């Protein structure tokens, strides 16, 4: 069976500004050959710090970025080779929930128009009456009443706005929802409500999530499998519960150790040194400059190899 989403050796370079007029512009590689697959109904998490390439990955999966090399296949179709019309037809199968519920809803549009917009653009064959019906349905799925349709975004709290954004993502009945930090702008108690809603929707509608976050605890709560990214590479991947219980890559261990633990009796643990920066020996392990276990062998880049059933890490010592 083909997976719902299959990303193979995805690379993406960005051109740097030219310093002189006739100079060849330099480039920076945001993704260094990322591969993973998401099965239908599965929730896959991507964690990593700012600059690790997780948002570039999200944009590439949604065909908002053209990959420099590698492929993104959704339902077996390679998105980068599709003609514009065929790509547009594929877009109804995928959608996105953004981080900031204040910036992602047009303040001048009523909720009905905001939620219906993907349908208006991607499924113009659907009539007005059915569209209104689908809007009502999507709003009730996310726990908002039909009365919400006639109101404006400013009348809603942050958590309710994120519900509107989720309703908009569901309106075309997609198989894949890409959520880029969907709860990081929300308060703790509201965060829990929105995460529970996402879990409910997944069960009811059989959705797949590509869930991107820098918050490991959030990823622990909503994903089945997870990939940890560092400077454009996946350094560890596997079942979420396994990765959290037995992290193998030193970077994953550092990330888990750094989360402040709400227990005053368990203070003071090891903290990662430095900041993510390209450095170290060219062709070597990207994490070596910060790694407490770095050794001469790390001048040779480790491959992402299976270390336990379903769990792979890119480290010589994992």
């Amino acid at each position, binding site marked *: 069976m083909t997976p719902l989403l299959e990303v193979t050796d995805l690379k993406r370079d960005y051109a740097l500004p030219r310093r002189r007029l006739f100079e060849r512009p330099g480039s920076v590689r945001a993704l260094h050959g990322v591969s993973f697959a998401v099965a239908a109904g599965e929730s896959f998490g991507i964690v990593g*710090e700012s600059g690790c390439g997780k948002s570039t990955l999200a944009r590439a999966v949604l065909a908002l970025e053209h990959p420099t090399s590698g492929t993104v296949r959704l339902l077996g179709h390679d998105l980068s080779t599709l003609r514009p019309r065929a790509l547009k037809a594929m877009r109804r199968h995928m959608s996105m929930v953004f981080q900031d519920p204040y910036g992602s809803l047009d303040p001048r549009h009523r909720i009905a128009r905001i939620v219906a917009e993907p349908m208006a653009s991607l499924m113009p064959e659907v009539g007005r009456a059915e569209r209104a019906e689908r809007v009502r349905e999507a709003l009730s799925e996310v726990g908002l009443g039909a009365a919400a349709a006639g109101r404006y975004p400013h009348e809603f709290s942050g958590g309710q706005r994120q519900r509107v954004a989720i309703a908009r993502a569901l309106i075309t009945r997609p198989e894949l929802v890409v959520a880029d930090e969907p709860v990081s702008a929300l*308060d703790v108690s509201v965060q829990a409500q929105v995460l*529970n809603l996402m879990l409910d929707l997944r069960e009811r509608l059989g959705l797949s999530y590509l869930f991107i976050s*820098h918050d490991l605890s959030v990823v*622990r*709560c909503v994903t089945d499998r997870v990939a940890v990214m560092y400077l454009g590479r996946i350094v560890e991947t596997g079942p979420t519960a396994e990765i959290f219980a037995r992290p193998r890559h030193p970077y994953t261990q550092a990330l888990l150790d750094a989360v402040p633990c*709400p227990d005053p009796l368990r203070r003071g643990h090891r903290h990662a040194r430095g900041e993510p920066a390209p450095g170290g020996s060219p062709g070597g392990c990207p994490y070596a400059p910060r790694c407490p276990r770095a050794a001469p062998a790390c001048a040779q880049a480790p491959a992402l190899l299976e270390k336990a059933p379903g769990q792979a890490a890119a480290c010589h010592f994992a």
Partner: protein
Amino acid sequence: MPLLDVRELSVSIGGVRLLDGVSFAIERGDSLGVVGESGCGKSLTALALMGLLPAGATATGSIRLDGRELLGAPERQWQQVRGRRVAMVFQEPMTALNPVRTIGAQVAEGPRLHLGLSRADAERRAVQALERVGLPPGRFPPTLYPHQLSGGQRQRVVIAIALACDPDLLIADEPTTALDVTIQAQILDLLADLAAERDMALMMITHDLGVVAETTDRMLVMYAGHVVERGPTAEVFRRMAHPYTRGLLAASPHAAAGRMGNAPPGLRLPTIPGQVPDPAHRPHGCPFADRCAFVTDGCRAVPPPEIAVGPEHTAACIHPRSEGAP
């Protein structure tokens, strides 16, 4: 006499009471955590302590620093306190710094104005302050501009500015919310180290119970403009007497992830039903009554007083929880 003594501080804006009778004290060298969600009044408290309340805000009560009353003091008196004796680290290092001035000049500004140092002395002091926060002059010369630094490095500059005049009290308002988790851990360690080595009082304002647990000795939990629970951090976490404190911990994914152990994903998080009450229409009695699972008629009658539930540990609840924390 405590370093800072705040009594019955209330702040209203446009006739709406946003902060309602908040009292607390901080001793020299003490660290106090203030935790709560958006709109609970924690940032407004910090602004009141800095004399930076927005125009149109009226404050009543008392704010005493070393016994001297600051509330209602003339601007000249505030200028001798703000930045000199009480300094603040803001949430957004991107917006807290001036993008068109060098980091050295921004750190030197305080010593020049408050301590009357010469330009050369102030610059030397700025280099020392930057070095202390982990920006040695070799790699980070004071002639750099903020855009040449990462978010974590910018937050270090903000901390250097706050430290440059050796304040007695450092207020950190969500200092790590905009930062990655590994950088957050480094910045929290740095703040704790600095407070300890200078015998400086630290007030850590955050929505994250994990940050409070890691960095503070005492804590306040705020809800809807009130202090609902207070005490030594270890005591508050051990007991969690107020239902809101419990709800906040239970709802946090950190705590849930800890409880899950090897459980498969998909477990629902416990949530606090309802929403924070609109400040203009707060209930008459306990502000948490409408969302509380243990509510009785008595809760809605009068605002609950703070009652002692342990050593130096109080909760504003007439039905404090007694069994172990969740």
